[in-house]
């Protein structure tokens, strides 16, 4: 077995040192009735070549968006990742390190996480960010719990423009704690009234920018209402590339910004792992979940970094911790941070402009299609369209033409009949003119 260095001679030698007759004897504490009897119901180990063949054939049964026109978004966006990033991610000193508990031999991890925290804080317009959570949806649940701790209240108001998975995960968490969730109806037109529902019991309002249905809204007035009522404003960002072009939530007065950073550096991976982002006002930092890296000096007075404010965390505070999170998304944070570094200010803002331009061009072309209505309002790189028939069969028919046309809203809201004809369409910098031609032509065929 290629991963196991011990030889039979080693094993015999070691047993002798231990004073045991066999390895079985080392398992003497296992009750006889619970021991595995006979061989495992698994095949024998395979060589590298055989494993590659087997998994390669499994992978080839998927339609890879890189091979076909792809307009899917709804919380996961396809972007080009510079080649160098993956090469660097594979450096064993990054890949095979544990959580940086020993700072003297973990300055690499600690420095990139400090840079990551800074980048996230900068693009969201917030004061501080943590070193990552699992994904955007779980970050939403964590934000609700955090807001409840800060405000000592329990009512959580969820916008109808918040990603449905974020809404569901937050509601699941609430069901098992004292939190009470009020989830507004899905809001494809961006017309819901949140302000009227905030009261003296509201811990926080969670909204999204750009919204799940694409809308760009200035939440500054909402932030003022929240402040007046003593509630926190939580803004979710599922597409961080947007922050290269639009007003950041911090500038609107957000108290907590959460989101998913998988758009940058991480890639799609069928939706996981994601990269949970959380940035907050500095005064709330002790109520924030997740790891934090801080700057300090070493015994020689040289600048260095350490894990800090750890008394918030489970390994110290146990049942009184801010969260149970331990393993987070370290390597995804590195991928995100590298992508941001490679882009830089000029690259990041231009990437955002490109995305928006592609989406605007696509919206114009779709508006000209008979029976297709682009929902009104502003957007970044994704918007909703109303089709003349149910979206799910349209998307499936398009897929059989090898075009990934969009995401039917009914996949998230199966019991809402009025959502049946709605489809979300995203266009990133990876979409070409030919891709758009194929989409328009395909839709003409499928809708006629």
């Amino acid at each position: 077995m290629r991963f196991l260095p011990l030889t039979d001679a080693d094993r015999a030698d070691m047993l002798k040192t231990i004073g045991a007759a066999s390895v079985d004897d080392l398992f003497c504490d296992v009750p006889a009735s619970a021991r595995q009897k006979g061989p495992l119901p698994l095949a024998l180990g395979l060589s590298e070549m055989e494993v590659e063949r087997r998994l390669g054939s499994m992978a080839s049964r998927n339609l890879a968006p890189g091979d076909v026109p792809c307009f899917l978004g709804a919380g996961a966006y396809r972007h080009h990742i510079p080649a160098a990033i993956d090469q660097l991610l594979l450096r064993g000193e990054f890949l095979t390190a544990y959580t940086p508990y020993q700072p003297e031999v973990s300055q690499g991890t600690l420095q990139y996480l400090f840079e990551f925290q800074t980048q996230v804080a900068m693009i969201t317009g917030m004061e501080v960010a943590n070193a990552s959570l699992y994904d955007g949806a779980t970050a939403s649940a964590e934000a609700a719990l955090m807001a409840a701790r800060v405000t000592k209240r329990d009512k959580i108001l969820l916008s109808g423009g918040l990603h449905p998975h974020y809404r569901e995960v937050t509601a699941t968490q609430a069901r098992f704690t004292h939190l009470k969730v009020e989830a507004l109806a899905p809001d494809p037109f961006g017309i819901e009234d949140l302000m009227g529902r905030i009261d003296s019991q509201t811990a926080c309002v969670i909204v999204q920018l750009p919204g799940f249905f694409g809308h760009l809204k200035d939440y500054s007035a909402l932030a003022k209402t929240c402040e007046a009522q003593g509630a926190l404003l939580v803004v979710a960002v599922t597409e961080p590339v947007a922050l290269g072009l639009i007003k950041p939530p911090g500038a609107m007065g957000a108290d907590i910004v959460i989101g998913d950073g998988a758009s940058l550096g991480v890639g799609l991976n069928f939706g996981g792992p994601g990269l949970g982002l959380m940035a907050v006002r500095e005064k709330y930092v002790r109520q924030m979940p997740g790891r934090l890296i801080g700057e300090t000096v070493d015994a020689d007075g040289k600048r260095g970094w350490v894990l800090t404010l750890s008394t918030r965390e489970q390994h110290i505070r146990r049942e009184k911790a801010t969260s149970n999170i331990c393993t987070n998304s370290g390597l995804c944070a590195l991928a995100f941070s590298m992508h941001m570094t490679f882009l830089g200010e000029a690259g990041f803002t231009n990437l955002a402009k490109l995305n928006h331009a592609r989406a605007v061009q696509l919206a114009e072309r779709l508006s000209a299609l008979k029976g297709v209505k682009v929902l009104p309002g502003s957007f970044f790189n994704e918007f909703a369209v109303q089709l003349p028939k149910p979206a799910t069969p349209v998307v499936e028919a398009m897929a059989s033409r090898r075009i990934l046309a969009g995401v039917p809203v009914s996949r998230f809201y199966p019991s809402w009949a009025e959502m049946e004809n709605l489809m979300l369409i995203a266009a990133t910098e990876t979409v070409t003119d030919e891709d758009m031609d194929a989409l328009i032509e395909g839709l003409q065929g499928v809708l006629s």
Partner: protein
Amino acid sequence: MTVLRFTNEHEWISFDNGTATVGITDYAAHQLGDIVFIELPEIGKSLAKGGQAAVVESVKAASEVYSPASGSVTAINQAIADQPGQVNDSPEGDGWFYKMSLSAPGELSGLMDKDAYEAYLKTLDH
């Protein structure tokens, strides 16, 4: 005349002319190591004997400070919130946590005096 008493949880309370001052003992401060953060109660907060009054944190540990007696908070030591190291420097002096007016001064009789506390420390496994 000042009365000084100690708890099993290593808080001290000194009572003089109707006002009591509360802090953590030299032993507690030493056990925690360098204190990095202190959360003090709000002035006016009413505390029950044995209820959580404050939180004190070192780099690797966090512990609650329990009120040695019932009453309401009349003053807090903002200086230690700003400079937590003061508690390490002078836990039973300048490093006091808060002052309170006692609602049941009789409770103090159930606490240890200096000699009893020192005897108690000797029983601890350190």
